[in-house]
């Protein structure tokens, strides 16, 4: 895993760099109100470059995350252009061996920095891996849309992001009878002619060739030199990038500011190199920051943004915070727990004032739907609203989560288990198409049982990963029915339990992560022992294939890393089943990846948005909106023994969870930092149950007895239009995105016009019919319907309006049917708010 970005002057730098780092704090620059970084420069080798960064000092002469970047405003002058040149962006380029200075000027003040250039040779030595391929990557030659397309372009095919350097070298140097390079006339090589558009190139001009300033033709000249040297291929001994560093790693500013980034690569031989020119920059949120190809960032909006920096299979972020307001007062904010403490810190940093707490009615409905996917009953709502117990919210949460310790109070365990089994069934592709009917039921029942018993998630994960036996007997064994083959199992395991999408690394290096094909294969190797055999004893029922492992004679050992992440030293190999090793690693407390993934998902489920989005795309280049909160929740989750219910209690009892969904003027633009509760459309199954409950007219599902709730459905496919249109997933993949959460027109049209819903409202055995038959008064029926649908009583305004409508509607039954229809179609019903 890439460690958090460090400052440029890292202790890991080699000797001379460390010397310069020391100098940075002692160099008597001058009295200028800006600082140049680095304070001294050493350029080593032909084509060596370095990006200077000029930063404004504060009143005390220091710099901080809030300091302004002056790089673009500064002027640069070299004392000897035969040794080093500098362009107007502050980028140095080695020209000849020797010592000189570069002077940086800002608003009349100047600072000179020493520059030493060495290692330049008359015949430059150019490496294929460390110099040629990065140029092709930067130029976009090996992008999927260009020569890394399935069949390449114009018969010239490169691997995606240089993931197969050997093949790339062959394609450039030997393929097509070697016509792409001309060692005797390197500049005339087709490779360079095309890239510089000297001859027609479908991809346009990718490099500046002869005729441009030396500063702009560096890449052309590097390739020219490489070809002139005979176009040597990748050497096994070649140095490789081990780590990438960006400076600054984090900035706090305001809209309209710019910041030059500098990217440094650390190599396996201990050397470092400024690769700003060859790095690729992308904004993760164009609404907050934009970035140019040269690494110049501009803040364009408020909030939290980041620039993703990529170079040679490595990627990391530079984060930018643009506060909404410079100073705020969180009046009345009281931390309920550490979630609130860390949320408050972020609100203060970002200058966002969160909304106040929601009312009891809203909280009750929200807590029920979020925790158990079920509407509170009329009696439960009435009792909760009437209670004056100041601790009633926490008590309700404990009852919903089954944490009271009293079986008489923990009466929602069935709903809890059903609702969360639904979520997990989605993730493990539990459907009868994949698993067969009995297999699907076995998985469903295992999930339900595990969740009902609050089995720690690390144990559930271990049971799934190491599952064996008959899939009819042992639910988790269906994991290997759903994900047949080691690659499918690896892909699913990474995404479900680590929140990492690694499928692209099956074919090429991950574009946004330092995950290579060998990393993916390494993960797949954990599943290569999995095999199957026919089952015995089931007779005519027909037993499924029994999951087992082969090659159990050899004690298995750990690889050096798993998906680039380290193996804790205390974990030893030497187990029969290699999956046990994976499970040990996944569930090791030192390995936060599982906890971060689970915590992020549950934050997303409960707060409407994950700390990282998408929920199952955790990577170094997809930063959490509140990293400290994610870390703290993960740490607490691990300490709790991977207790999901306690995690939910921590989140649900926080003030953050209980904020009103009504935004304030201050936080209306925020949909990232939970300053107000994010309104969610009720998912398909709870919504259908809610309609059934409100109308008192249950839905019948195929091969399930009448009265079975939609949250109890074990399978994926049911012939129910509401479930389909509201996005019940078919469980054909492991992506959270398979469950559609966005509202759409088809949904609205369905609830508005559905004959099924109309029939439910008018069901002669339904709720409304019962109320009418019981001779309840209009007021009683109205109140009951409001409590049943919206978990609140009607307001005086609503009562007045309803009174008028009632007076104008001669048919009492029609009036109340219309009322139920209106309530069911209201946003307050269809959404959790």
């Amino acid at each position, binding site marked *: 895993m890439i460690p958090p970005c460090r400052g440029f002057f890292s202790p890991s730098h080699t000797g001379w760099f460390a010397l310069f780092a020391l100098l940075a704090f002692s160099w008597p620059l001058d009295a200028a109100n800006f600082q140049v970084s680095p304070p001294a420069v050493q350029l080593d080798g032909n084509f060596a470059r370095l990006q200077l960064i000029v930063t404004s000092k504060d009143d005390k002469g220091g710099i901080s995350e809030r300091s302004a970047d002056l790089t673009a405003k500064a002027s640069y002058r070299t004392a000897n252009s035969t040794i080093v040149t500098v362009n107007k962006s502050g980028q140095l380029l080695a020209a000849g061996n020797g010592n000189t200075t570069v002077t940086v000027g800002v608003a009349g003040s100047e600072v000179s920095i020493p520059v030493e250039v060495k290692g330049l040779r008359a015949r430059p030595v150019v490496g294929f891996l460390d110099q040629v391929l990065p140029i092709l990557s930067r130029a976009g030659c090996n992008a999927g849309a260009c020569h890394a397309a399935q069949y390449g372009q114009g018969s010239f095919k490169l691997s995606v992001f240089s993931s197969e350097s050997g093949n790339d070298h062959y394609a450039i140097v030997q393929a097509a009878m070697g016509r792409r390079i001309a060692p005797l006339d390197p500049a005339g090589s087709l490779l360079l002619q095309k890239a510089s558009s000297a001859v027609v190139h479908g991809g346009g001009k990718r490099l500046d060739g002869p005729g441009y300033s030396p500063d702009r033709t560096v890449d052309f000249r590097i390739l020219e030199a490489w070809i002139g040297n005979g176009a040597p291929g990748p050497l096994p001994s070649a140095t490789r990038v081990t780590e990438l560093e960006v400076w600054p790693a984090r900035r706090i500013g305001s809209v309209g500011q710019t910041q030059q980034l500098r990217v440094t690569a650390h190599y396996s031989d201990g050397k470092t190199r400024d690769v700003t020119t060859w790095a690729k920059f992308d904004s993760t949120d164009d609404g907050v920051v934009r970035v140019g190809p040269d690494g110049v960032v501009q803040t364009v909006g408020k909030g939290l943004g980041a620039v993703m920096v990529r170079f040679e299979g490595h990627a990391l972020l530079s984060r930018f915070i643009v506060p909404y307001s410079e100073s705020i007062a969180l009046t009345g904010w009281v931390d309920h727990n550490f979630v609130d403490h860390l949320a408050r810190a972020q609100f203060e940093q970002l200058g966002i004032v969160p909304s106040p707490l929601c009312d009891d009615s809203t909280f009750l409905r929200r807590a029920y739907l979020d925790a158990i996917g079920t509407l509170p009953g009329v009696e439960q709502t009435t009792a909760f609203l009437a209670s004056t117990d100041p601790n009633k919210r926490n008590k309700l949460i404990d009852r919903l989560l089954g944490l009271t310790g009293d079986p008489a109070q923990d009466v929602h365990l*069935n709903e809890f288990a059903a609702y969360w089994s639904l979520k997990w069934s989605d993730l493990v592709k539990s459907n009868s198409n994949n698993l067969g009917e009995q297999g699907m*039921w076995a998985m469903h*029942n295992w999930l339900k049982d595990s969740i009902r018993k609050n089995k720690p998630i690390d144990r559930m994960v271990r049971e799934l990963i190491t599952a064996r036996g008959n899939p009819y*007997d042992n639910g988790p064994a269906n994991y290997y029915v759903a994900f047949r083959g080691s690659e499918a199992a690896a892909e699913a395991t990474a995404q479900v339990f680590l929140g990492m999408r690694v499928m692209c690394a099956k074919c090429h290096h991950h574009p946004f992560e330092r995950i290579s094909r060998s990393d993916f294969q390494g993960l797949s190797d954990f599943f290569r022992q999995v095999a199957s055999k026919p089952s*015995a004893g089931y007779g*005519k*029922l027909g037993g499924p294939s029994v999951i087992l492992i082969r090659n159990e004679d050899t004690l298995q050992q750990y690889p050096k890393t798993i998906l680039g992440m380290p193996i804790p030293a205390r974990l030893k190999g030497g187990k029969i*089943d290699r999956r046990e090793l994976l499970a040990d690693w996944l569930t090791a407390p030192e390995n936060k990846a599982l906890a971060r993934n689970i915590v992020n998902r549950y934050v997303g489920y409960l707060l409407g948005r994950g700390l990282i989005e998408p929920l199952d795309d955790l990577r170094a280049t997809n930063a959490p909106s509140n990293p400290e909160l994610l870390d703290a929740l993960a740490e607490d989750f691990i300490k709790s023994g991977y207790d999901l219910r306690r995690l939910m209690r921590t989140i649900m009892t926080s003030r953050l969870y209980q904020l009103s969904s009504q935004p304030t003027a201050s936080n209306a633009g925020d949909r990232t930092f939970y300053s107000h509760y994010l309104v969610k459309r009720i998912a398909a199954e709870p919504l259908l149950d809610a309609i059934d409950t409100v109308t008192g007219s249950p839905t019948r599902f195929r*091969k399930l007895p009448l009265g079975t709730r939609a949250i109890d459905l074990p399978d994926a496919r049911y012939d129910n239009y509401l479930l389909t249109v509201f996005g019940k997933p078919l469980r054909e993949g492991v992506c959270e995105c398979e469950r559609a959460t966005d509202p759409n027109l088809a949904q609205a049209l369905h609830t508005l016009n559905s004959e099924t819903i109309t029939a439910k409202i008018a069901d002669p055995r339904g709720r409304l019919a019962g109320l009418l038959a019981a001779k309840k008064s209009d007021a009683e029926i109205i109140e009951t319907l409001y409590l049943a649908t919206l978990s609140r009583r009607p307001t005086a305004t609503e009562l007045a309006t309803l009174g008028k409508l009632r007076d104008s509607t001669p048919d009492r039954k029609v009036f109340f049917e219309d009322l139920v229809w209106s309530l069911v179609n209201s946003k307050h019903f269809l959404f959790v708010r």
Partner: protein
Amino acid sequence: MRYLVTVAGLLLVVSLGQAQRVYPMIMAVRPVAVQVGKTSTCQFESRYNLHGTYRVIVSGTGVVGEVDPPSAMKAGAKGDVTRLAVRFKTAANALPGMRDVRLITPQGASTLGQIVVVRDPIIVEKPNNNAMKTAQSITLPAAVCGALETLEDVDFFKFKVAAGQALTFHMYCHRLADRIHDLQVIADPILILRDGSGTILASNDNYYAADPLLHYKFARAGEYYLEVRDVRFAGNANWTYCIEINDRPFVTSTLPLCIKTGATTRLRLAGFNLPASEAEITLPADEPDGIRRYVLPLGKDQTSNPVPLIVSKLPEVREAPGDNDTSAKAQPITIPAGISGCMDAADDVDCYAFSAKKGETFTFDVIAQRAGSRLDSVVRILGPKGEKLAENDDHQERRSGYSGFNLTADSRIEGWAAPADGRYVIQIRDVHQRGGPEFGYYLQVTRSQPTFVMDLDTDKTNLAPGTRGVIHVRITRKDGFTGEVQLGIEGLPEGVKATCGRILAGSTDGCIILHAASDSKRTAANVRVLGNSTQPGSDGKAVALSVEARPLQEFYNPGGGRNHFPVQMHTVAINDPLDLLDVKISPTALTLKPGESKKVEVEVKRQPDFKGNLTIDLIYQHLDFNYNNSLPPGVTIDARASQTLLTGGNSKGWIVLKAASDAKPIDRQQVAVMVHASINFAIKFTYSSEPLLVTVEK
């Protein structure tokens, strides 16, 4: 009045006429249990006619049955009787568990039905118990009998328990449904326990294959609910069940699995509500070898449920304490040996070393699941350097696609020959690396003796006076047995004679043709079929070899495929006249030279009203799968030259037999010319001709 009598007589004639094309098939028994020490009546439901049932055969001892009373059996519409009350008298010491029941009717012996012998009072499911609020109250202990009758059927029972009471719920359902002859979809039941609020406390789906076993200790006194359903919410009127619910000791397995005769064996017990961790059992010295169920004394007047145990007279070897996990640390044994061991913990491996000389052959047979162990064994033979020389995971006696034979995952290596003089190691482990007290095994290590096992297709032969039937016999050769097997039969009912064929050396199939005398009376008897052969002994002298055949009951898979499972009885019954009165062939002896073809004329004598289609065959086959072919090797049916389909009232056909040019000489091999009358797509009633003796000359 005279008119009514005439009509009634006509109906009877019609019903009897139609009753000839029947295949009495027991589909369900309600209630499916009988209690020890009691007389109880069960309703048998059938497909096809049970009219006139005059005898009830129950497997094992201690349970006898009779039609209850015979006069209660009245003809329904069209004379069909598809519901029949049978009264069972169950002795107090009858062994609990499943029993096979066969009804003998004038139309033939029925397929096997099942009942469960239980110890506790039987409670029959009442209607309208499909929800908690309408749950049926039951008093425990009890054996609850019901059915998962329809799609989405759920049965609820409520009962009271004391604080701290621990109950065991043992359900028979899948095991019952699995043995119904023509049931296309099989039950997969689940048991779920709920408290008064409906909250699920515990559940179990599969323990005995798809049947659940659930044990739960109730912390609080109160009323609780048992939910019973098919796990898929599927249902079928024939999916009956019996759930034994009690707080008595329930043994799931023992260690060792093997008990000796003429001595006392101390057993370590695994299970529920056990008053002690051990029990002792003493068997008489003449107790025969085999796997049988025994009730164990547990002290304080308590006994266990019947527990499967192995009786063996092989020299006993107990797994020694300590590490025998590796080849180097293997426990030495001498052969023959019966090794009792256990996978004590996860990842356990047990190794036993023996010495062998080059060419010596051995058989290694693991008995585990057959005796109630949870072990899914893998057995290997390792060489001097630990290299794997042989391995078996799940042994299948017959690689025939008969899923019914794949009953357990026990492993076996047959006829392994030592490649050189030296030390070898038997390694045994669980295929899933599991372990614990329920993972015991009994490993029989013997010097290989050529032998065979023998199966009968099917479990019954129905004859009418004057007609013939055929019993198909197939052997599976073991440990290098190559000899010829002469078939024999014992216990035939009066009036029936048998002509026993042989299984040729190197072949697998033979037949026995039964002939009921034309004046024979309705009767039935269970028969034993024996295969006799000789095998050269170690001294070169012939050693007699006699093997009793195992009957197989056929059943039909979804789609019409034919399959089998082993049962305990083959019944020969003499019925009322059937569709055919006789099958004649000409000639009855046929001599073929290599490359020669000859015709066998076939003529059937039909009942006057029987015009149904018939097919003639010499090979017992279904959907291109061959179940018996007693023809000499190299002799085949020339289908193009044969007339095997007799449509309408046609009574004559022929079969042309052809000898291959390389057919080996064979003298007078007995085959049966079969005439099949289809009952439906899958089921047929088979008649046989008198024996056809086929000779192949040089």
